[in-house]
């Protein structure tokens, strides 16, 4: 029997502070997911996750089939990479990811008819029937192994290897599995459309993940600006015992620290994980990938990406193979407008701006936001007048101006006193600052330099 307190949190839960940027989701909010035609060339980075890079196992000019492992996990906290197409592997090369990291990548040239393409691909990845009952046949250990073999990592952006998250630990039992359908970044509608068009895969994956990690309860959290998605998930979850939590729309509600507060009323300790409060958080897309891996035995090779913003001619939600380049998606979406100046991997609050459009999509890429001159134009930096707005919006209760200015002036004692390392770089402070001080950039720089000092 649920307590009143739990009921209240399931409807309208939220966290303190945060900001309300215009969500701009109307640009791609009506666009049904389209399937990107198979690009002729893919580039598969060997690290698309947190942990050790995978090791390539295919040689140049080797034939690869769709779904074949091209790089194997190097350690426990690692994930393999599978080819989304049938074709020929190329010579190992180096690519630069949006976060600036250079790493090895396996090029694959698509060749011949693809076993899964178009509608058949969609049906295999998200369509068709997904069982929500009779899951006892899948033992927890087997579920975790399937997830590992499929190379599944967190698809919300952090890209943490999912099999590590779901592995049972007797010392730290898990009470709640939270499925994250918040998608709090402006412009992005990939998770939204997945919840509309593939809700059963999400529910099935959630139940399997629950079996794996042994959670007592599953809650799917969705922001209240997505009423259709809430209905869709409610219908799909009927009879399964899964609760739907409708949380207030606010950035960064989708952050796991804010989500555990809004839905469970619990604070994840600084430097810790949701595991420390008995919770595991999984993105909806990751959940669906778990279902595909366990039930259909298929690896993580495709994902849904929103390409949106005033700088793109036709904003869309696309099902794309991992390893497609940004320019593939941009071309399919009509191309850049003349006033496009910034192409961002992810959303505008935390995403990385890129300059090389040949960069490949990875498992953690949730969207491409293209902004125009007018979107990003801002006044020059002026001195901080200690207005305190950054303090008013920081979801973690920090004092961004002090942290940033301490980092700028390399006053590490001051930075330590103001808990610089606790910052999650959500961008609320940088968004709101009236003086246009690059707070997040300074804090990020400070975090690195502080550890070196």
């Amino acid at each position, binding site marked *: 029997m649920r307590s009143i307190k739990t009921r209240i949190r399931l409807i309208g839960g939220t966290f303190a502070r945060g900001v309300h940027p215009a969500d701009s989701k109307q640009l791609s909010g009506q666009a049904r997911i389209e399937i990107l035609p198979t690009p002729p060339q893919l580039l598969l980075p060997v690290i698309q996750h947190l942990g050790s890079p995978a090791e390539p196992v295919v040689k140049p000019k080797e034939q690869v089939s769709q779904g074949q492992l091209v790089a194997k996990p190097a350690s426990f906290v690692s994930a393999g990479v599978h080819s989304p197409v049938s074709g020929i592997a190329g010579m190992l090369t180096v690519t630069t990811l949006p976060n600036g990291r250079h790493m090895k990548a396996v090029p694959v040239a698509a060749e011949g008819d693809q076993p899964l393409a178009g509608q058949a691909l969609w049906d295999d990845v998200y369509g068709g029937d997904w069982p929500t009952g009779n899951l006892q046949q899948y033992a927890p250990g087997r579920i975790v192994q399937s997830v590992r073999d499929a190379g599944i990592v967190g698809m919300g952006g952090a890209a943490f290897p999912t099999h590590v998250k779901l592995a049972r630990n007797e010392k730290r039992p898990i009470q709640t599995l939270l499925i994250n359908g918040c998608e709090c970044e402006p412009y992005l509608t990939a998770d939204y459309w997945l919840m509309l068009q593939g809700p059963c895969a999400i529910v099935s994956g959630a139940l399997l993940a629950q079996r794996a990690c042994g959670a007592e309860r599953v809650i799917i959290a969705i922001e209240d600006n997505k009423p259709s998605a809430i209905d869709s998930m409610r219908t799909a979850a009927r009879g399964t015992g899964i609760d739907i939590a409708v949380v207030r729309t606010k950035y960064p509600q989708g952050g796991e620290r804010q989500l555990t507060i809004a839905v469970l009323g619990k604070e994840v300790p600084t430097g810790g994980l949701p595991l420390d409060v008995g919770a595991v958080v999984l993105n909806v897309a990751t959940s669906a990938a778990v279902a595909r891996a366990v039930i259909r035995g298929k690896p993580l090779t495709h994902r849904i990406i929103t390409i949106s913003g005033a700088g793109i001619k036709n904003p869309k939600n696309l099902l794309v193979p991992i390893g497609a380049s940004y320019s593939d998606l941009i071309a399919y979406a009509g191309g850049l407008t003349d006033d496009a100046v910034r*192409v961002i991997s992810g959303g505008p609050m935390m995403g990385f701006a890129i300059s*090389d459009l040949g960069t490949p999509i990875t498992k953690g890429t949730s969207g491409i936001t293209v902004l125009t001159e007018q979107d990003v134009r801002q006044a020059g930096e002026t001195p901080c007048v200690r207005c305190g707005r950054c303090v008013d919006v920081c979801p973690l*209760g920090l004092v961004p101006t002090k942290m940033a200015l301490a980092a700028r002036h390399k006053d*590490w004692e001051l930075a330590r006193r103001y808990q610089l390392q606790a910052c999650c770089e959500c961008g609320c402070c940088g968004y*709101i600052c009236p003086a246009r001080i690059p707070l997040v950039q300074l804090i990020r720089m400070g975090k690195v330099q502080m550890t070196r000092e």
Partner: protein
Amino acid sequence: MAEVSKTKENAPGKQDSALVVAAAPHLPSRALSTRRMMLDVLIAAVPLFIAAGVVFRWYALKQIGICVVSCLAAELIFTALRARRATVGDLSAVVTGMILAMSLPWSAPWYVGMIGSFVAIGIGKAVFGGIGQNMFNPAMVGRAFVMIAFPAALGAAGYVQPGHPIEVLTQATPLTALKESISAGTAQTGADWSMLWPLFIGYTNGSLGETSALAALAGGLYLCIRRTASWEIPLSMIAGAAVVGGIVNAFNPASSWTVLHHLLGGALLFGAFFIATDPVSSPLTPRGKWIFGAGIGVLVMLMRNLSGYPEGVMFSVLLMNAAVPLINRSTIPRPVGGPVPEKTAA
């Protein structure tokens, strides 16, 4: 590879010269800038201008004009001396001039306003490093200087000019009158309710900005709604003053001035909304702001009742400004999830 339709050439793998890379967040909130915040203060001061104009006629214009022009001149000179680009565009000097003018008596000679302005900008701001770096409220620094340098002009007697055609200018300020009546033993017993309306509407003598409680409240509410002023400060200041006023009243129930008189009279409301809320010289965190405001409120009432001065807003603000670094240090908020654990705190 796929084509990208853009006028500039854009083969994938090559740098696209039209794309600009910058750090997140890529969307700036358009709601505010420092300049807009200063403009808000000036807009909020319009009721005060009107009230001052009605009561003090052209003296109001004279003082405001002198102070604003002097502050602008001082800012230009000092930024040039420090070899910095002129910052007068951010309107902070105009705000300092306005607040300084509002805290002067109508009768102050032109040089009082001018010298006060130069001290306000020079010592109150420039010496600390310019806008955002000062520890004390610049206008109050200027006023403190002229108060001590020109005691006659700013003392109680400076407000009164017997025989002046404008009637209020021949009377003492309400707070001075109260203080004198208490020390002379001629104070009325029992609350003087007839005094409340003039204190509220503003038809009394006093510095330019302190007379009308109504005008200060109107402007102050605007500032709080716009979030240019942190509402914690005026609220805690009024509450702090009310508490001390209530205690004083409890000990002296026959006083002609009740707590309400004290809240409406003198520069308390003007100080609460316009002076204490200066963001640069007030604390950063909500908890710090409560402490700061309460401290000012308590000090104002202590000065009014226990010191030789009839009014205490200026000194209270300066004293609490001095405490702000300590307040900031003591009110560092606990981060959500607790402090950074020792081993990862490099």
